[in-house]
Every structure is written in C-alpha cells, then in structure tokens.
C-alpha cells in the first residue's frame, strides 16, 4: 500500500461525499476542504503507535454470533413498520426509481 497522502483536496471531499451519499453544497465543500486537513493530520499519529506485531481490536469484549430458538415471536405489524415511511403503497415502502431510464 502506498503512503496515504498528507492532505485532502476539495475534489477528495467531493468524492467522499458522493460515496457517503450526501449532496454537499459548494459552500460546504469549501468549508470541509479547509477544515479536514487539520483533523486528519491530528488523527494520523495513530500510524506511529503500533507495529505489525500488535493485533487490531474491533470490540472491547469478545464478539460471538448469538442464536435464538427458531420460533415465531411477536413482531411489528405491516402498518407499524410502514408508519414512519416517507411514502408507502399496498403495504410496501414506496421508493423513487432505482434504475435510470436508459
């Protein structure tokens, strides 16, 4: 892996916002592009902390898959599950088109 770039450009912020599905305004892109380099520079010190011999810790306690008995238990009704939806139809979530026209 190549050494990560020290800086983060406005184009990088725009790309990251696209990955995160946030339609940032031009002003927000300017604002974050000016601000993020200092934050990323601060957090980059973690790279000096540990060598390859140190294991990564994802969770403070051991994480195991948890199963339950395969029995029917009460759950939300369709009406309850759809109650917070921006739009619904025929007991389904109504969403904008997923694919483009062409």
């Amino acid at each position, binding site marked *: *892996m*190549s*050494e*990560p770039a020290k800086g*983060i450009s406005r184009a*990088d*912020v725009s790309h*990251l*916002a696209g*990955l*995160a*599905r*946030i*339609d*940032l*305004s031009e002003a*927000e892109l300017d604002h*974050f592009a000016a*601000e*993020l380099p*200092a*934050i*990323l520079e*601060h*957090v*980059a*010190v*973690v*790279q*000096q*902390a*540990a060598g390859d011999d*140190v*294991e*990564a*810790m*994802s*969770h*403070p*306690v051991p*994480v*195991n*898959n*948890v199963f*339950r008995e395969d029995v029917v238990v009460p759950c*939300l009704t369709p009406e*309850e*599950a759809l*109650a*917070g*939806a*921006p*739009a619904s139809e025929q007991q389904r*979530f109504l*969403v*904008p*088109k*997923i*694919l*483009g026209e062409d």
Partner: protein
Amino acid sequence: MTDLTRLSASELAAKLARKEVSSVEATQAQLDRIAAVDGDIHAFLHVDAEGALATAADIDSRRAAGEGLHGLAGVPIAVKDIVATKGMPTTCGSKILDGWIPPYDATITQRIKAAGLPILGKTNMDEFAMGSSTEHSAYGPTRNPWDRDRIPGGSGGGSAAAVAAFEAALAIGTDTGGSIRQPGALTGTVGVKPTYGGISRYGLVALASSLDQAGPVTRTVLDAALLHELMGGHDPMDSTSIDAPAPLVVSAARRADVKGLKIGIVKELGGEGFQAGVSARFNEAVELLTSAGAQVVEVSLPSLEYALAAYYLVMPSEASSNLARFDAMRYGVRVPPAGVDDPSAEQVMASSRDAGFGDEVKRRIIVGTYALSSGYYDAYYGSAQKVRTLLARDFAAAFEQVDVLVSPTSPTTAWPLGAKLDDPLSMYLQDVATIPANLAGIPGLSLPVGLADEDGLPVGLQFLAPQQADDRLYNAGAALEKLLEDKWGGPMLAQAPDLEVAR
C-alpha cells in the same frame, strides 16, 4: 411542604413507599418545574405530561391495592432522545428524524416502563450524539443551569441539565466518548458509563456500536446505582450484552468505604492543558480519599498519547457506517433534489441526507468514509484499532497495581456557548479523559468535587474500573460523595444559582 423536585430519587422512592406522597404529586411537581424553567434551559425536546401522569396514577392505584412494586416505581424519569420510546417522538437531535415515532421500545425503555417510572419526556442532545456541548442539536442548544450563557456539555447536555435544574431526579444518558460523564462534570451531577455490554443497546440509535453504552444520569451516586441496576443485565436482543451476573452496584454504593482501596492517579490526565481550578479540586478530592484510608499511587498509561486520535477515527468510521441507514426510504424525512424531474432513489437519498444532517454529522461521516476507504483503511482505521489493543493492555497492567483509577473528568469547566463551535478540533480535545474508557470497554463514573476558583463552575472527578467491576466505582464514588458533602455541609447543587421561574 417539602419541595418534591429537590429530593433524590431514593428519598422520593422512600416517601412513595411510605405513602407520604403520591406519584401523581411528584410527577406533577416535576412537570410544573419543567414548565417553569425549561423555556430557559431547554433540556427537553418533548414533554409527555399526559403519559407521565397516567403512569403515575396507575402506580398510585396499584400501590394502594397493596401490589408489590419496584423500588423506583412512581419516580419520574427523563430519557435521552436517542432511546426508542414507542409512541413518543425520537429525533436524536436531528432534522432527519423530525416527527419519527418509534413503533417499538428500546429494552431500557421496556424496563423502566415495567418498573413503573413515569417518563417525563425526551432530552436534548448533540445530533446523533456527536458533540461535547449540545450545540449540535438541530433543535437549539441546552443551557447550563449554573450559567445559562454556557454549554452544559454533550452529547447528553439535556439529561444532565434536566437533573441539575431539578426538572427530574433521574435521567437516561448514553456515552460513546464521554456523553454521560462530561455533561455530569460540567453541570455538577453524577453520570456513569457502565462496562460495555452491561446495559442493553437494543433500541438505541447507534452512533459507534463498539463504543456506545447507556447509563444513569442523577444527582447522587446511590440514585445512579439504583437506575443502573434497573436498566442493566443480560438482554437477548443485544448480541454484545454480557450474559453474566450484573455487578452489585447498589450494595456497593451503600458500602461507601475506601479504607484500603488502591487508587491510581492517571499521570497523563493532568497538569498541562488542565484548568487550574479543575486540578485544584481534583487534588483536594484525592487528599480526602487518602485521609479516609485509600492508598493513592501514580500510574502511567503510555498509549493514552494516541487514544484521542484513535477515538476520532474509530467513532466516525463506525458512525459513517451506522448512519448509512438514514436513506429516506423506510423512515425519516425525504427531501427530493430541487429542479430535478423524476429523481432517482440515489439522488433523493443524497439530497435528503444533505438536508437532514447537520454540519458536525456530515463532518464525521466524511472523516469516517475517508478512514474506511480502500488505500487508507490500514493506515487509519486499522492503526486506530491497534491503539485500542495497546490501551487495553495499559489498563490491564494498571489494574494489576490498583483497584480503581482517577482523573479529572474534563480538562476544563463549562465554556461559553459558541466558543468552540468554529473549531471542531478544540472541541474534540475536551474528550481526552473520557474516551479511553469507551475504547477499552471499561466503566467510568463522574461525580462533582467542587467549584473552580476562577469561574465558580462545577468540576468533576472520574473513577475508572476494570470491565465488570462497576461496583468499585459506586463504592469509591459514594465514599467520596459523603466525604465532600460532610465538608460542604450538603450537596454541591445546593450552591447552584436559583433559576428564575417563569409565570
């Protein structure tokens, strides 16, 4: 007649049990107090007077009928707006959840309902718990009852201010990097982050799943223990919930004896960068503990140097992933892009997230997305996870020498509203003493230890203990609380300014 709002939860519970007061009277007193002061404090985003009084009346009639009730039955409680409450709005301080009414209860909501605690309402917070001041709430900041031009801490500034302003004796908070303990320190109240997995996360809106932990927000250590015990214990709905007997926190709070207790002062959490009045009150508290028979030594946690940086990588990384669920499809606001005919789902998602998320949430999602990107993952997220390992080793070594660790909870007292809003990094640095517990999954308790000389504002001291040894925090915390109150001649909040009462 006694002002019921000034009682601790345990005192009120005793009066309720003796039928000296009713839960309806106590609940109405809290609602009146909220009506009088919350226009100014803004601890609550939603108040449910009708629901709270209905629960109170039900408890009163069940008590009159001789039914055996939970010890806290009838004691009103405030709930942070990150906790799902069926039929009651839950916004997480965000516009993206404006108007959302959860169709289910969090496990901790179920437990407080089953025990018969009237829910007064939902408390303000930094949007999605991202912040240390409650200024990042989309619904406006909460003000510190000690000085209303200052922040109450965050993210749980609403719960802490509600308790400090006598709007409730009990509140629920959540702590991902200090969101219970730091507001506790800045408002002169008690806050506990239990061991990771000690209290169920089911039904909490997730910020960083490996760090988030719910806990009690109160005015006394014993009250915190009572609420901790009520909420805690195994929950099959949370895969990280600890399936083992819960620590005996209430009996520990009643023991309150530090004779022979080995206490380690964390060398790295003091000195430079810590306000003079914070250090002074902290040192005096440590002297009191010594005079009561505790053995105090200095302990070093060398990897603390990297902890804050690791936290500000792990937290945004997990948050960016968790917040992907706000896609404007199943719940939350949907805001189609302006000037686009027949927009796609992806366009609607991106414009809704732009409209619904505030500045700090967007900032952390971008940082998290960066840290998890291909090519950067190992250097940032991977390295941060290694720091967690180093920190856990440091704590393990320290707890071989001592029973509990101590430090100031926050390097400063409450700062003026707006003072750090334009400088996110300076706000992040405020979390230096609280984030290590979250990274390592250990429990922490903050309690008030006095007022700083330079500004007359509350200072908090934090105890830390090994995982599943939460009882040690309550024992040490209750002992120090008693030593301090004997010295002061009463609780510290008795020195808080009287709030102007509306109407």
